């Protein structure tokens, strides 16, 4: 009889469907804490500012970022050129402004690749456990044995250097990392009652996994994604600095630093400015990520 009672309850038949309303409510409740958290607020302001700069780049630029003017080369910062000009006479301010778009795009698309491929891999691994899990996680461990930059270098060596290949190279680095995070949450989530209930009413494994378990593991995933965008931007700048990422004449902060190296003694501002741009952007995403962790993942929150 008890069995019948349970099966009557719509709650159990459908399982507690992931409730976006509740998710948003919880988000709103905690948003108050977020506002109290000054560092996180600074982070979100930085991230939004960089996004705005990237979107409005053509309006903010003072000159064409690719326009060379040898007669005007290596000017120190002045009213005509806020950040001076580089060795080819290009306006550094405009290049920095356009570089923000490149950094954000690479960061977000690379992390997107990591999420799209890593999440299902980790989810399947954590849900089915056993042999499947063993095999998948060993492969992931092998990929993780390459330090991030080396892994990206391998991919860039195979595919060649370009904007899209840089995104792919960095994205590949994050696939096993997202797989790990997802696997961990799915492992603990699959023991919950609603999963058992779903199975009892004959829902298929894939449906349970992707429609019920996965949405409940979103919080740690969002936190990780934010932090990994910061890392991805750092990796892109390192690759471009080595001359193996974004190719000239495209404005990337990393390749600007690479070009500035030679002029470090005579024109240090050429090296200082792009580095500050990278640092501030990455700091923004790190602060934002810390704040999100406090909101979404109270278990991991800093005391």
């Amino acid at each position, binding site marked *: 009889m008890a069995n019948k009672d349970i099966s009557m309850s719509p709650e159990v038949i459908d399982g507690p469907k992931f409730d976006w309303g509740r998710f948003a409510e919880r988000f709103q409740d905690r948003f108050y804490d977020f506002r109290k958290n000054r*560092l996180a607020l600074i982070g979100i302001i930085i991230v939004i500012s960089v996004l705005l700069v990237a979107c409005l780049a053509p309006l903010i630029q003072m000159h064409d970022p690719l326009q060379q003017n040898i007669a005007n080369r290596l000017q120190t910062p002045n009213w005509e050129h806020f950040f001076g000009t580089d060795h080819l006479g290009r306006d550094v301010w405009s290049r920095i402004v356009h570089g923000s778009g490149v950094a954000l795009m690479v960061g977000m698309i690379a992390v997107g690749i990591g999420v799209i491929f890593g999440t299902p891999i980790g989810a399947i691994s954590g849900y089915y456990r056993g042999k499947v899990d063993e095999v998948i996680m*060993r*492969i992931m*461990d*092998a*990929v993780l*044995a*390459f*330090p*991030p*930059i*080396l892994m990206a*270098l*391998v991919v860039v*060596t*195979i595919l060649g250097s370009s904007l899209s290949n840089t995104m792919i190279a960095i994205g590949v680095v994050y696939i096993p990392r997202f797989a790990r995070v997802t696997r961990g949450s799915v492992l603990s989530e699959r023991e919950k009652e609603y999963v058992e209930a779903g199975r009892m009413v004959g829902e298929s494994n894939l449906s349970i996994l992707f429609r019920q378990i996965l949405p409940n593991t979103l919080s740690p995933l969002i936190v990780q994604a934010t932090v990994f965008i*910061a890392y991805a931007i*750092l990796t892109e*700048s*390192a690759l471009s*600095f*080595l*001359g*193996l990422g974004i190719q000239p004449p495209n404005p990337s902060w*990393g390749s600007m*630093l690479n070009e500035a*190296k030679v002029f*470090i*003694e005579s024109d*240090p501002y050429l*090296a*200082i400015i*792009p*580095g500050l741009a*990278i*640092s501030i952007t*990455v*700091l923004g995403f*790190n*602060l934002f990520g810390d704040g999100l962790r406090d909101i979404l993942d109270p278990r991991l929150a*800093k*005391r």
Partner: protein
Amino acid sequence: MNVLLYMLKRIIYNIPVVLLLTIFVFAMIRFLPGDPADILLSGEGGAEDPVVRATLMKELGLDKPIPVQYGIWLWRAVHGNFGKSVYSQEEVFTLIMDRFPATLMLALSSMIVAIMVALPAGIISAVKRQKPADYAAMIFALLGISIPEFWFGIMLILTFSLWVPVLPSMGYMSPFQDFFGSLKFLILPAIAMGLRMAGVVTRMTRSSMLDELGQDYVRTARSKGLSERAVIFIHTLKNAMIPTVTIVGLQFGTILGGSVVIEMVFSWPGVGQLIINSILTRDYLVVQAAILLLAVFFLLVNLVVDFVYTLLNPRVELT
């Protein structure tokens, strides 16, 4: 006995991982567009000599099916035979091993720099929670994980080699040749490379110290009338170190990766510089071997960290 068994299990677990690593690295060359023989000879200094080509084909078994090629390659690799560099004509393995000590020295020094800064910063930060010292340490840690290390390196060169010329901006000297002379070259790159790890370890130390300080045994120790110093240094620190040791081991991989960039900034003659130069000269046999050796070395370090971890923490489940 249990511990030994556990360690054995860990080693066995890593064998397939290493095999997979070799497959990836082997596949790297096969994924490049074109004929492997052409690719391997395409680097600068590669000869169009048909004899050289024939020798290479025979050596690597390039006319045989791919699994056989892999077998041949693996068998040679296990014996330290990775072929000859197209660029310098030297044995790839010797080329890498000649440069490995420099990379290892830089990596270890930057780890020491990072730990020397991060442990005190993390401990003070946890003990003086929400006081100015805590905020200072947390801001330092945030900057550490946000500033690109190669840019920090360039800024160090700018400050300490150009504006206040006290240290050399680049180069390397073997410590066996002149210990104190070599330190001069080591300081700037080690600081630049240690920055990120310092940030990560500071954050980890702080949070694990805070965890431990909230435990019952700490309250007991305090109520026994132990001095705060004894509570922190004798009771709490040892337990708080467990997560910190793990993160230090994991960060070692990042440090090895970071060496690629830092070595280019400071013209440090290590494996990282070798990898980048070999990519640029398309000397793929060197790239392949160097990446494999770094990854295997990283796995070994993690294995050691795992063992230290089990020794430090008797509570860990030995499964």
